[in-house]
């Protein structure tokens, strides 16, 4: 069913990286991380920010923005092709729609992979001397990959269903902001309702898990329940994509259209 997925993935990744979009997004990402790292490092020097907190801050921003970029690329993947008139020629080939979807997910994930690699030196610079670099990078890789995969699948679903590329990008950005906004509320997990809200939202749950392991020194297995919602989000989005993909990856977007 998905035998042609590697061919689609290779071409989509080439389009992303050689077409210029990938490098531009990654450059903007590295500029942002440079600024954040500089600010965190100078605060550290002035003793305003403890070194672990600096690492945690940069990891959280690296994951959040990396996942956002993955979502943006996925949200453009089908609706953008529709508007550029290139989707029809892809649908006219004998490959399954599942292959098309899978290839596009892989291409979108390549941006997260590159974003993670870019974040490595920043985390290393800030975490030197407190034996936290390895743990921070591993956390960033695991949680970031889970969230990026979920967002890539959700982005593709939105892109397939949206009536235009503008709608797809707007809905995806709103979703991302809605999911990330609670991470900025400082005292959320202190009440039982707050804790429930943190656990239900895959983004806040993932970020909170990073914080617990990095800052509070919890073991990896101690708070695994926080990873339930990210894992469920990944599984749910991928299953939805696999089931609905063949029907919603079509020439015209918009709910109910053919």
């Amino acid at each position: 069913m998905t035998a042609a997925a590697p061919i689609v993935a290779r071409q989509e990744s080439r389009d992303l990286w050689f077409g210029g979009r990938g490098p531009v997004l990654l450059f903007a990402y590295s500029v942002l991380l440079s600024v954040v790292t500089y600010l965190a490092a100078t605060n550290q020097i002035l003793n305003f920010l403890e070194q672990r907190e600096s690492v945690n801050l940069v990891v959280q921003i690296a994951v959040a923005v990396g996942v956002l970029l993955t979502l943006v690329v996925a949200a453009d993947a089908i609706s953008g092709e529709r508007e550029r008139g290139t989707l029809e020629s892809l649908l006219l080939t004998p490959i399954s729609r599942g292959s098309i979807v899978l290839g596009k997910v892989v291409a979108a994930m390549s941006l997260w992979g590159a974003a993670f690699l870019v974040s490595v030196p920043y985390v290393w610079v800030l975490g030197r001397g407190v034996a936290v670099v390895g743990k921070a990078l591993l956390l960033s890789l695991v949680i970031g990959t889970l969230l990026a995969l979920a967002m890539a699948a959700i982005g593709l679903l939105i892109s397939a269903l949206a009536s235009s590329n503008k709608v797809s990008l707007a809905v995806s950005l709103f979703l991302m902001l809605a999911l990330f906004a609670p991470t900025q509320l400082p005292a959320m997990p202190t009440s039982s309702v707050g804790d429930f809200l943190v656990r239900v939202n895959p983004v806040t749950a993932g970020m909170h898990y990073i914080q617990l392991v990095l800052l509070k020194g919890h073991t990896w297995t101690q708070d695994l329940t926080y990873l339930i919602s990210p894992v469920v989000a990944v599984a749910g989005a991928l299953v939805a994509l696999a089931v609905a993909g063949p029907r919603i990856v079509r020439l015209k977007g918009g709910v109910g259209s053919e």
Partner: protein
Amino acid sequence: MPGVTLEARELSKWFGSRTAVESVSFTAHEGEVIGLLGPNGAGKTTTIRMLSTVLPPTAGDFEVAGVPSSRPADIRARIGVLPESSGYPGHQTGLEYLTYHARLFGCSRDDAKRTAVRLLGQVGLTERANTRIATYSRGMRQRLGIARALVNDPAVVFLDEPTLGLDPAGQKEILTLVRTIAEAHGTTIVLSTHTLPEVEQVCSAVLILDRGKVISAGTVADVTSADANRQSGRLRVPPGEVPRAKEVLAAVPGVTVTPDDRRDVVVLTATDGMNKALAAVLNAGIPVLSFEIEGTRLSDAFLALTRGGAS
């Protein structure tokens, strides 16, 4: 008789309460070029999209090269399509683009590249093979699109408005290419276009759609003769000879000259056939530059059948 490569049976498509295509049936044979004609909104693109399995029909079925419409992926493996307003990734080269599409049709990497190089040569783009598509002219993009439609050596090729937006030279190039493909490979071609004079030259049969229904089908001669008015004709003479020609024709029994302001054309009606009228003009020493029976051109038939294409 060449084999049937395409057979549509009572194909219909509704979008909500709107009927886009209604009970379209036709067959096409190996090596045949069928012109799919109709005013804008007649259902040509929808018909092509159903036959190319991009849109599921609401009713009816079809077969392509013996493959029933219930196996869409197998049909897609046997057809080539140049969609209307097809887009191209500007940052890819023509060679990369065709190689990628050949790979999607199951070619190995080497075979795909060989196919791409061969097709680029066939459509006259060898010299631009390694140039980015963004730098191609519209005509070159259309030729690249036709090459893409041929990557799988298809039994049937659908070309939706391949000459749209091209200058006359570009249109001629594309139509010559269409004829070459049909003749050289025995490929059936379904050509949707508004360029009617060229359709007359290239197509062996036409199918005229209006408001989603087939209103005329058959060879170009069948379609035009059904509408031809053999009692009416247009005679072109040198501009200075028009008054004398009108005078001579008016004197022929059964001939009526229709008032017309054109400088070099006399429009006439002859109830006993045109021979006497023509003989009278020639006997009077008036040079005849051209003579045409009204309604024998495809465009006349098209306009008459579609009521001026005003639908």
